[in-house]
């Protein structure tokens, strides 16, 4: 069925576009809490890309690590440090 093949590849391209835009938002974000949740959304997009690439065992490992453990780890670091990033190029406070 050529339609299913094209659907699969087009959807991989769509989810990689999601991941690219969320990576850019993570890069330019100054509030680190928002940056952490943007990276969790990027992990959801990667999960769907792995499902469409026919790797279900990687999905089982990557959802637990990417959506759950990275978010918990970064929130643990964030709750013991400061929330906002200093202005780029300006005087560090």
């Amino acid at each position, binding site marked *: 069925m050529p339609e299913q093949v094209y659907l699969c590849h087009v959807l991989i391209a769509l989810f990689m576009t999601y991941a690219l835009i969320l990576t850019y938002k993570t890069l330019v974000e100054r509030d680190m809490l928002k940056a952490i949740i943007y990276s969790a959304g990027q992990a959801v997009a990667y999960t769907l890309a792995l499902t469409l690439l026919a790797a279900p065992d990687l*999905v089982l490992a990557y959802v637990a690590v990417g959506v759950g453990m990275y978010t918990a780890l970064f929130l643990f670091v964030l709750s013991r440090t400061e929330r906002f990033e200093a202005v780029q190029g300006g005087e560090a406070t």
Partner: protein
Amino acid sequence: MGIPGEAVTVKLLLTGTLLFVLASVFYFIRVVRSRTVPDLVLAVDVLAYDLAVFIIAFSIMCKSPYLSIGALPLVLWAYLMDMYVSKHLSRRELGD
């Protein structure tokens, strides 16, 4: 009254799947446009729930049961991410 053939079934499933992909595009626009932290978490959650439905519909179309086991951990870990962020928002710390 019987079940229609495979071509009609695949067309109907494809229609449903493309509706969910369209909804995921709108949810993604909400993720990008959101200003505050609770909006962002809510949008990522609903995006994950929506894409879990997409995973199972895709596995029925591919006739492969192995592709469908990604839906359950996606839903459960999205819920745990909710709880982490709400704990951090309400008490400024994780744990306890």
